[in-house]
Each structure stands twice: as structure tokens, then as C-alpha cells.
């Protein structure tokens, strides 16, 4: 099926490494040294161009890590159901040095089905969460945890809990894990004894092309700065050409960089993309409508932050129903949400099967308005109801 565009890869725990700060520092040092030496020789134009070229390379190194290494694969694509707790749209700016704004992903936290915002993992678990025995202990302690957790057997929430807790596959990397917290307004007063700041929220990110765009722009600028440094070797006019090119490239960064922060995750044209969603936190009082979502994405750990698991990129999401904020806040979820997730999972197994595009490309499926109006007559192009099957 048609998935939302994505620009990142995830690395296996064994293939992951930290931000290559040493490489970036080395590039910066080389650039500065070049600038210093060129300055001593009175060749400022090639010196500045070479310095800016190495700065571009350092930034490209970071962007490549950000795009291809930062996310640690936790094991394939998964679905989840719940209500959007809080939306976090990207934050465009005209300041090209606001580097955080080049991340144009559209994020939200999903309040997982069966939980309420104040439910949290116990501090006893969080304190030992990277240990191999922690998950088993959490399962055995589960019946004793309410009201910190819902009064449900662990088996009914096991898959959802698994999504948000640290995974043993990456325990040896010694990374932080802080999970997702709720907003102050939803914090229980008084606090529930034994709780933590890790709530049953699954972070989801819909990818925007900002960082990919930035890396592309940096490669172009790198080429221009290298060319400027080379041009400066031309007698008489070389230095002037180098300065002009360098200034133009810097201006391109100032203007293009600001524009790139506006290249956010946007719904593709056609294909059923689009619509709006009513999240939990902005719902209008207890009777405010909150939409329920089925989301599907790649399960990863984002190592750029202090640490949590997330679905990133989110391949798609659909609205599967609604409830009121009051009901969700009290844990009164519609009873069939989990069953719906299983049925959607079953249907999407078929929809994402490799032979599905071929089936959908058959002539009998090329109608736009109605199969009986702009379709064609095939073996099974408009089946009649079979009373034995339909009438029960």
C-alpha cells in the first residue's frame, strides 16, 4: 500500500554508534587550521572557503548520522491503538541557525488503549528497567500495582507495555531511558505512591524532509566552497571570484535554510491522505470529543533524546472511532478497541501483501465512481449477496 514518505533508516543495536563528535571536531579543527595558515600567507579567500567547506562536511556528517544511525531498530513495524494525547507539529522559523527546526517531523503521543493519563510505570521497575529481570518482575507485580496501573490482567496489556519499556536487545548500549510524561494539568494530586514519570504514552513521529533537505543543501554549499577555494588560484580575479562565490553560498544558506524548516511533513496529494483529528489534551471538557486512532509504524528507540521507544516513521494512521475526554480520563474505553486492532491487523496483512498491487491493478478494479457505472464486466467484478452467507 501507499505509505507516508520516510527519509530515515534505523540501525541495528550492534551497528549503532553515538553522534560522531570526534569526526566533526576533527573536520572543524582542520578547517580552522587551514584558515589560520591561509591567513598567515595572506590568502584569506581560499582559507575562508576551505573553512566553510569543512564546516559543511562536519554538518553533513551529523545529518547522515541523524538520518541513518540515530534510530535503533527494535524489531519491525507494529500497530497500536489509542487516543492522541498531545500533538507536536514542527516549528518552522526564518532563523537558519535554529538547527532544531530542521527536524520537520510531526509528532504526537498516543495514549494507549486501556490506560488513562495518570497511569504510570512503578518506580521500582524504572529503577532497574535495563536489567534482564525487570520485565518479568513487572509482570509478576502487576496485580499489586493498581491504582498506578489499570486493574486488568497483565496479559491483556502485555503488548502495549512491551512497546514502551526498554528492550534487552539494546541494553548493552548504556543509553538513557526516560519514557513519556504527561502534562502538569493531568498529574494526579496527590501523586500516586510508587509512581514514576513514565506513562503509557507511545511517541509517534511522521517524518518531514527537513534534515534530508538540509544535507542536500550542505552538499551543494560544500561544492561551491570547494570551487571558490579552487578559483582563488586564478591570477588577478581569483580572490574576487572566491569571495563572491562564498558570499553567495552563505546567502543561499541563510535564505534556503530558513525555507527548509518550512518543508514539514505534509499529506501527499490524493490517495485519501488528509483529514483532521481531535486530540485528548485540547478536547473541550469532559464531553469533548476525542478521536481514536489505529497507527502503524516502525518500532525504534530514538537515541538523540534522553530515551524512549517510538513508532518512527509512522507509515499511516486511521481514525477508528471516538469517545469523550471524560470517559477516557476515567478509563471507560469503548470495549471493542482491542478487537478492532486485531481485525485491522488482519486486514492490513492482506493489504500489505506483495501480490495486492497486482490484484488491485486488474481491469475490474479500475473504476472511479461505481463499479456498475465506469467498471467492466468480469468474473467477480460486482458480486451479488449470497443469502446463505449474508443472511444469518
Amino acid at each position, binding site marked *: 500500500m501507499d505509505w507516508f514518505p520516510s527519509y530515515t533508516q534505523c540501525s541495528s543495536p550492534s551497528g549503532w554508534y553515538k553522534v560522531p563528535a570526534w569526526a566533526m571536531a576533527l573536520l572543524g579543527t582542520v578547517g580552522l587550521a587551514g584558515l589560520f595558515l591561509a591567513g598567515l600567507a595572506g590568502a584569506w579567500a581560499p582559507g575562508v572557503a576551505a573553512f566553510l567547506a569543512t564546516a559543511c562536511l562536519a554538518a553533513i556528517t551529523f545529518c547522515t548520522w541523524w538520518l541513518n544511525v540515530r534510530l535503533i531498530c527494535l524489531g519491525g513495524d507494529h500497530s497500536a491503538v489509542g487516543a492522541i494525547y498531545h500533538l507536536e507539529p514542527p516549528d518552522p522559523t526564518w532563523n537558519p541557525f535554529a538547527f532544531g527546526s530542521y527536524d520537520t517531523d510531526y509528532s504526537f503521543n498516543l495514549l494507549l488503549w486501556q490506560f488513562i493519563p495518570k497511569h504510570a510505570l512503578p518506580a521500582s521497575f524504572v529503577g532497574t528497567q535495563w536489567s534482564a529481570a525487570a520485565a518479568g518482575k513487572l509482570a509478576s507485580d502487576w496485580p499489586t500495582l493498581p491504582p498506578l496501573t489499570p486493574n486488568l490482567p497483565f496479559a491483556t496489556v502485555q503488548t502495549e507495555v512491551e512497546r514502551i519499556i526498554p528492550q534487552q536487545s539494546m541494553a548493552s548500549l548504556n543509553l538513557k531511558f526516560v519514557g513519556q510524561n504527561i502534562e502538569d494539568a493531568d498529574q494526579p494530586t496527590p501523586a500516586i505512591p510508587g509512581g514514576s514519570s513514565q506513562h503509557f504514552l507511545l511517541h509517534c513521529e511522521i517524518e518531514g524532509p527537513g534534515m534530508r533537505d538540509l544535507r*542536500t543543501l550542505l552538499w551543494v554549499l560544500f561544492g561551491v566552497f570547494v570551487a571558490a577555494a579552487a578559483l582563488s588560484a586564478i591570477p588577478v580575479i581569483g580572490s574576487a571570484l572566491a569571495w563572491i562565490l562564498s558570499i553567495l553560498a552563505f546567502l543561499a544558506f541563510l535564505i534556503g535554510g530558513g525555507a527548509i524548516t518550512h518543508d514539514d511533513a505534509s*499529506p501527499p496529494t490524493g*490517495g485519501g491522505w488528509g483529514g483532521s*483529528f481531535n486530540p485528548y489534551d485540547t478536547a473541550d471538557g469532559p464531553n469533548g470529543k476525542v478521536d481514536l486512532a489505529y497507527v502503524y509504524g516502525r518500532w525504534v528507540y530514538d537515541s538523540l533524546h534522553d530515551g524512549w521507544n517510538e513508532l518512527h516513521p509512522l507509515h499511516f494512521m486511521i*481514525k477508528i472511532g471516538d469517545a469523550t475526554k471524560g470517559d477516557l480520563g476515567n478509563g471507560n474505553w469503548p470495549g471493542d478497541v482491542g478487537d478492532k486492532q486485531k481485525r485491522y491487523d488482519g486486514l492490513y496483512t492482506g493489504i500489505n501483501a506483495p501480490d495486492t498491487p*497486482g490484484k488491485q491493478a*486488474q*481491469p475490474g478494479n479500475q473504476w472511479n465512481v461505481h463499479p456498475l*457505472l465506469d467498471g467492466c464486466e468480469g468474473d467477480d467484478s460486482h458480486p*451479488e449477496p449470497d443469502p446463505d452467507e449474508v443472511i444469518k
Partner: protein
Amino acid sequence: MTILARFFRDLLRLILFLLRYFLRRGSDPDPRRCRPCPPALKRPDPFLYSQYYLMHLGIPVTWDNPDIYIFEGNTAVDPHNLEPSTDYTLVARIWNNSTDVPVVDLGVVFTYLSFGMGVQSHAIAATKTDLNVKGLPGCPAFAAVPWKTPPMAGHYCVQVLLEPPDDSNWLNNLGQRNMDVAQPASPATFEFDVGNHALPRPRRVHFTVDTYAIPPLPPCDDRPPNDVRLRELKRSAPHIPEGWTVQLTPSELVLAPGEEKTVKAEITPSPGFAGRMPINVHALDDAACFGGVTLVVEAP
């Protein structure tokens, strides 16, 4: 794809974005306004043969809806043959115009009306069904509810409304089957009601008449896969054939709010007619068509 080719593809995309951005600067929606949001939201498009939507597209319609069935036991029956106080099963055939988004627990609401246009509807039942995507088993889906007809003899229209949790096209979710059959007993005579339950002011009603029926489909065998040439849809309905007369009495109405009136249709076929001829009568007020019936004249 080589690294260089990918770089040039990304560069081209970036240049196009920058051009688009600077040329249209100021018109881009602020994503924080959440319209649309979140961007990865996808919507299904469940639908059935929906006369109002098709008319909105300028396509002629029949009120003999091909997606609404009435069964007595295991036998499909015509709506004009319904007996009073009898158990039937209503079945809706539901399609999905999305290749990506199915609908689990799609709400399907069945109602009935007395035979006519703009008259009041009465609840029958609601049910749910799972609708898969276009081109896979489970599309079309069928939804069925039992229906015991009212104790009064008469003709009835059946309406089906789809209520999905989300939809990329909300206009094609309502379909209705309003059909009656008569023999041309010099002339064939029908009666239907016309009502005004929608407007708080008098409704001026007039009618249009045509003989549109859904034409036969071309065979799929003629087309290769991925052939997206679509059949050209007729934009005008065939007129009443020469030699036929359709007399509506009255031919125009003014209905007070809440008022219903009966209209008599007398259809005289051309001499020697044999076969089955659908006559579609559409009711229009000052705004648009608000209903219709298909009257079928059958001669052996």
C-alpha cells in the same frame, strides 16, 4: 539507485520545494492550525450507489438501487411485491474506493419511507460490517438486517446510510431504492407521495422524467491490467420515447412545512410495446433534486 543519482533526485526535490515555497509564500497553511492533521492520516471511502452524489456529479440515476436488496427467506424480491406484516431481510452491498484503508465495524443504518419523495423516514435497524479495500476479498461487503413490514399494505422505499468513523467522501454514503412495477392497463397507473419535512417554509415542487437505466458493462477481458481508461459516463438521461405519454397529476405542487401530498402517474406506452421500461420521476424544489422514484412498466 546510486548515491549520486539519489543526491540529484534529492536536489531536484529541494529546488522544486524552494521554488514552490517562494512563489507561494504566505499561502502555505500553518501546520499548527491542525488542518489537516496529523499528516499521515488516511481515510477510507465506503460508498454505495448514491443517487444524490451521482446527481451532484451530473450523472443520471435510477431509483432502482442496484446495491440494495430485499430477500424473503433466501429469495430476492422486488420492493413492489412486499406483503404487509411479513419478515424480510434487507441487504446492502457496500464498496470501498480506497486501495489502502479498510473499515472495521462500518455502521450501516437501514430506514424505510412510504413510496415517494421527501417523505419521512422510519428506522428499521442498524448493523455493522467490515469492509476491505478495493480489489481484495471483503470488498464489496454486505450488511443485512431483518425487517418486518408495516401492517398497512403499500409500497415502501428503503434507504441505507453508511456511518464510517472517517471518510474521504461523505457525499456517497446514502442510497435508496424506490421502485414500483405496473402492467400497462391502458394506462399503467402509479401513486407516490411527495413531502416537505426538510424546509421550514413552503416547498415548490416540480418533476422531471426520464428513462435512464444503468447500461450494460463492457467486458473486462478487453482491457489489460493497469488500464485506467474509464468508461465515459453519460451526462444526460434518455427522454421519454416517442409514442409514450407520462401524465403526472398534479404536475407541480406547493407543500407547506410538514405537508405530504399524493401524486398520480399515468403512463401510456406506445402501441405494441412489449418488455420492461423504467420511467424515473425526479422531484425538484428551488434548490435541487430531493428524491425520486422509478416506475417500471412491464408488458409481456
